[in-house]
């Protein structure tokens, strides 16, 4: 656990040691805020539906850009060999890195808090739905990050890592879309709806967006995240052979 903490601190500091962190956060806030504001005044409804609704698609691009450096950068610098010969289990090193990226994402997400404050000032929003929306956004980011961390390990350079990450996140997103599931069902009966329910995230995320926090949806997000983190650990262990 101490090892995880040491890795976490170094990785989290690494985000803020370069200007990239600030550019990321500003881009995240400006794009998200901008997208939200355009629809907010048109809709004239005091809620954050539009903001949370944009996130699954927006994060497909944002999250892999956050996670791309996690392993790929260490491979480039040669520090991967250092990390894998420290007396820390590979899984703990991975967890430290993952949690650092997650903390970075949560910092960026926390930057959007003026939005609910503004909405609350302008109208009378459903506070519960906003809370569950934020919880959903955090879980959504956690899942994409697990995917992105895993794909970062498979690649030697950051550009390939980010492209593979975007594709993987896109797949997790798109199989949950009803139309896509129906199309897949048309080719392979049952497969599309299976993927939609157990792999795709839209259905689970939409429930949270509406203010419903169910055990099934929580299990989905945490389970999928765990699966990708375990895959990452298995890759780290298997890489030796």
């Amino acid at each position, binding site marked *: 656990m101490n090892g995880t903490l040491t890795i976490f601190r170094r990785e989290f500091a690494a985000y803020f040691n370069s200007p990239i962190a600030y550019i990321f956060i500003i881009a995240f806030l400006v794009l998200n805020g901008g997208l939200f504001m355009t629809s907010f005044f048109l809709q004239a409804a005091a809620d954050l539906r539009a903001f949370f609704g944009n996130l699954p698609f927006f994060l497909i691009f944002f999250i892999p850009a956050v996670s791309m450096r996690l392993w790929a950068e260490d491979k480039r610098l040669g520090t991967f060999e250092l990390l894998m010969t*420290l007396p820390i289990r590979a899984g703990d090193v991975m967890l430290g890195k993952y949690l650092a990226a997650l903390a970075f994402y949560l910092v960026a997400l926390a930057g959007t808090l003026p939005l609910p404050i503004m909405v609350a000032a302008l109208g009378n929003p459903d506070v519960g739905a906003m809370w569950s929306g934020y919880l959903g956004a955090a879980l959504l980011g956690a899942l994409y990050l697990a995917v992105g961390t895993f794909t970062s390990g498979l690649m030697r350079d950051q550009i390939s890592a980010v492209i593979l990450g975007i594709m993987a996140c896109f797949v997790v997103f798109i199989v949950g879309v009803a139309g896509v599931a129906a199309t897949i069902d048309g080719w392979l009966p049952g497969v599309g709806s299976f993927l939609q329910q157990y792999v795709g995230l839209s259905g689970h995320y939409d429930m949270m967006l509406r203010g419903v926090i169910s055990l099934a949806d929580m299990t989905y997000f945490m389970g999928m995240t765990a699966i990708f983190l375990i895959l990452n650990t298995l890759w780290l262990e298997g890489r030796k052979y």
Partner: protein
Amino acid sequence: MIEVRDVSKSFGTMAALDRVSFSLNKGEILGFLGPNGAGKSTTMKIVTTFLAADSGSVTVDGIDVLEQPLAVRSRVGYLPENVPLYLDMNVQEYLEFVGRARGLGGARLRQRLDWCVEACGLVTEYHKPIGELSKGYKQRTGLAQALIHDPEILILDEPTSGLDPLQILGIRELIKSLAGAKTIIFSTHILQEVSPVTDRVVIINEGRIIADGRVGDLQREAMGSNRVFLGARQDAAAVSPLLEGLAGVERVEHLAADGGCRFEVRAPFGTELLGDLHRLAREQGWELNELHEAPYSLEDTFIALTKRSVRPGAQQEVV
């Protein structure tokens, strides 16, 4: 302390190591020699648990590297060939990070930091970002990183590569100063690096160990004979048969290219070649301008051993 037994490793279809075996006692320094791509780094990566062997076994301090990799890692300080540095950190932050990751903290960490920075000559660079350091200082930071937890075993992959002669001397002195207290393996493809630090070498070529022993013994084994250079102000044609007639002499080579009367005389180790030649010269009244033994350089040895390993069964030919 370190036991490598019958270790083989291949990457895809390419065999990187082929039944490599050697062992190292506590306090010994081992020079691990071989051309680029011979398998030095792969061997070190296996000993440090970064890679796993396909077959064979490696134990460090009696601990199997596959069964208890974490226990092995905590005993080993490792400097990989590609020095693992976080360029965005400064020297202090980096060494503190590695120290903490290796379980140090508090006063112990302070004390080890001070020692490493002093020993590796990093005092002036302590607060500089690693990305701005020269190659020599980067290498020293890498070395300090390997020493931070005061490991019993040091594995250094090409610790002097890319350094200038003065820096090489510094690293060499540092390794020598650790001799006895630590068990050290260091690899290099530069032969002159070995002799000043240790006389125990393992030579690897194309994934196979081709020699293991003391430098002197290896030279004897590889070259088979001693050689003496003799130069005199005489008629070469008259000198040559007398040299060939000397008891024990295997080969006499007229070094005509050097001009005049100069010979390389070879006889098996153990014969008093130099003394015999000296006596002969005195008896004949030769006016000598050169008479000395010429020990083989490590290069000669290396080349002879490498050739032999490439053509198995050609041993007699070389001797």
